């Protein structure tokens, strides 16, 4: 390494980007230099992927400048970025499973790469490149016979052959075993040593400290640490930067916890593809408590919510509500026991968009005698129930007969609250209950959850938004890779501690 700093390869300055009225990037900046491994660190939703999508021309920035080789470089689309030698290896590989490695190479090359016009040339090129950089591949192998690590190699070689000199890797080790990860990171170092600028998007603090030359940390769309050398940093400091200095939550009147409502013992659930989702979770939740489950997205939050409500089978362990074992019970039985859920995706698993507001509101109570007369439903009773809920929850733009699809996010969430928070509520599972909501709707949801806890419900708040966890919870558990890595009281909960647990550093 030379004493003088290498020259910047790619530089993004003052980048703003909003989706609708939600600001995702706010004056963010980022610089990577030739021949270095530069880690880009941040929580989910911090803007890491968005700023890299701006760099690769996938998104157009609302404001800001992009420089390549210290020259102003207006990006009009992905093709411009490719011409400038910017290539990205996405988390989800863009390979055709039923094609061979060579066929995928030819497909990606199109007519853009000189010397690659036939299948044979494509295969030869990718094998030669593989030998050159030390990532061996078999050009005749079909993609769907390859392991994840092998597919990743193909994807990286593809990007290199397409002429990338600035290579962005989006969480390359997230799907790899430890040994594969080490090999991948050593490769990344070699790539940088040969002069390439490498951007490593990651959550893993140790990777950053051990393999990156420099690091940029983003939080809530802003760059909070730019272009810092990793020497002299430690994981605690990085975790604090990522998560931020949170203001201590407002003091809450201490609620004496009541009897145990929800008990999970060794609770395990698989994902739909059969891989482990959560493993051996133990939770005891009492009436009046709000237990916040903090964690980086994708660490088992969805399997936990699905397993609780009964959309996914219990693979091992026990789940009981108010002392009744419901481990193998279907959704309806769990609901009868008082389990209610606010799902993370309102219109995917909370509401039927094309049914009316009244129908959605009565969906979980269709067998109630109040709504039925013999064989037929009582539309009048359903409408009255809906009108009453609309008023009680102040659902704007709603009428009992209107289709629920037309409601805004906040009002759709109120409709779900109106349905789920009823007199039989015992355990409330709230999964990212304020995702995408504005401040006012957010406060309403929080107040409603607090009020149900005060009335004796046990609440489980699963959220990727640490701010939300800290304001709402009475206790915090941190989930990482499908396991609870630690439980903290509110007194013990500080950003650094939570941040480290979220990364799996117990």
């Amino acid at each position: 390494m030379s004493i003088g700093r290498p020259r910047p390869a790619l530089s993004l300055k003052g980048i703003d980007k909003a989706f609708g009225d939600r600001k995702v990037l706010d004056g963010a900046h980022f610089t990577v230099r030739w021949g270095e491994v530069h880690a880009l660190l941040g929580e989910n939703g911090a803007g890491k992927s968005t700023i890299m999508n701006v760099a690769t021309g996938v998104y157009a920035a609302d404001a800001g400048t992009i420089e390549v080789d210290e020259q102003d470089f207006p990006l009009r689309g992905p093709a411009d970025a490719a011409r400038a030698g910017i290539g990205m290896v996405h988390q989800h590989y863009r390979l055709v499973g039923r094609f061979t490695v060579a066929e995928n190479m030819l497909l990606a090359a199109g007519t853009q790469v000189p010397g690659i016009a036939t299948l044979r040339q494509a295969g030869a090129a990718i094998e030669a490149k593989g030998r050159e950089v030390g990532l061996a591949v078999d050009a005749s192998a079909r993609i769907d016979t390859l392991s994840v690590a092998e597919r990743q190699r193909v994807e990286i070689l593809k990007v290199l052959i397409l002429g990338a000199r600035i290579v962005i890797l989006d969480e390359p080790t997230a799907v790899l075993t430890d040994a594969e990860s080490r090999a991948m990171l050593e490769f990344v170092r070699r790539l940088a040593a040969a002069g390439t600028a490498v951007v490593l998007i990651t959550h893993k603090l140790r990777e950053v400290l051990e393999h990156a030359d420099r690091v940029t940390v983003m939080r809530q769309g802003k760059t909070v640490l730019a272009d810092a050398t990793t020497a002299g940093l430690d994981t605690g400091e990085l975790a604090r930067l990522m998560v931020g200095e949170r203001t201590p939550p407002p003091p809450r009147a201490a609620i004496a916890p009541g009897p145990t409502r929800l008990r999970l013992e060794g609770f395990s659930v698989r994902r739909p593809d059969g891989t482990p989702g959560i493993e051996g979770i133990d939770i005891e939740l009492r009436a009046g408590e709000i237990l916040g489950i903090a964690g980086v997205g994708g660490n088992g939050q969805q399997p936990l919510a699905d397993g609780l409500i009964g959309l996914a089978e219990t693979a091992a362990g026990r789940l009981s509500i108010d002392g009744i074992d419901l481990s193998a019970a279907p959704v309806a039985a769990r609901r009868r026991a008082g389990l209610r859920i606010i799902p993370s995706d309102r219109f995917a698993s909370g509401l039927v968009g094309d049914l009316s507001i009244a129908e959605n509101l009565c969906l979980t109570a269709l067998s109630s005698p109040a709504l039925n007369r013999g064989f037929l439903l009582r539309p009048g009773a359903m409408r009255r129930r809906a009108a009453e809920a609309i008023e009680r929850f102040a659902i704007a733009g709603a009428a009992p007969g209107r289709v629920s699809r037309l409601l805004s996010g906040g009002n759709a969430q109120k409709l779900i609250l109106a349905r789920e928070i009823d007199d039989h509520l015992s355990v409330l599972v709230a999964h990212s209950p304020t995702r995408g909501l504005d401040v006012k709707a957010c406060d309403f949801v929080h107040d409603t959850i607090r009020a149900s806890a005060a009335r004796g419900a046990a609440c489980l708040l699963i959220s990727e938004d640490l701010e939300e966890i800290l304001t709402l919870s009475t206790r915090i558990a941190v989930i990482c890779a499908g396991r609870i890595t630690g439980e903290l009281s509110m007194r013990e909960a500080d950003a650094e501690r939570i941040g480290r647990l979220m990364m799996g550093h117990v």
Partner: protein
Amino acid sequence: MFDRITLVRRQDVPWTARTATFLGGLGFGIALSCLLLVAAGVPTESLIDELVVQVFLSSDGLAQTVTAAAPLILVGLCSALATRVRFWNIGIEGQLWLGAIAAAAVGILDIGPEAIRVWLMMLAALAAGALWILPPLVLKSRFGVSETVLTLLLSNVGFLCVQHLLFGAWKDPNNGFPVSPQMGPAEQLARFGWGNVGMGTALALTIAVLAYVFIDRSRIGLQARAIGLNPTTARAAGLPVTATVALMVLLSGALAGLAGGVIVAGTEFRLTQYLGNNYTFSGITIGFLARTHPLGVIVAAFGVAGMFTAGSSLKVFYGLSDAVVVLIQGIVLMSLLSAQFFSTYRLSVARRGVA
């Protein structure tokens, strides 16, 4: 210049736009069909006569149309009920064949007292139709096997069963033709003295109204709608998804079976190799045109029945083939489908200079 035109999905489709596109599509389809008929040799001036007067306005023609509508209403309902719970029943003819076999069996084997024999035939037809859709239902809900392929293939099996009987045990002993012996008077649905119009039509209309009440006003109907529109939400709400789907699908099969029974006991009075032809396609067309609404099914079935009537007279007077009816159905359906696109999406032309 076309790269500046984009499609924008409409947030809320006003009923006026929906009606206008529907009528537009229908008009376009009919106009195209007329052109086709003229090209096939039907004189322009007799089009109205052939397509409207002879079909809906003359007594004989109307009687024929009303009679043809009975099984069409039933197969339309069959398609509508299954579609409501996202079960793609492409084997309507199979269930119809089995219903026809069961009804004919009750008649041929003289099962039960004569006073209620024809109703036993109807019950047998219902049961046979439901039975024929049972394997696809079970295989789909237990193992996720594609019901499209299963129902379609079972259709052929059903037809082969019919042929097996007609060329074997049930061959008409009087002349040796591959048709079953004729049904006796007690094995025929009562007629009202206007062509073949009779209990078959009354039965179909009654069932359509009942189906409307069932789907629109009952708890199970609402469950079925919720499941069809969003299965994930339905499951998360704790609705009995498997049971509701099973009920709707079995009803669907039963109604197709009943259509077979109604044809055997109401119009053909015997089992033949041809009585079930094209009902799958017609059923799907009707179910789609009606947007799976049971009362809409009645209207759409009458429309398609009119095409059958027109087709049979075109066949006699102009020597056009049976395929013309199917062709016209196809043209009208495709026009309506294309038109529907414009009620769902709006064309938007980007202004110059805006990327």
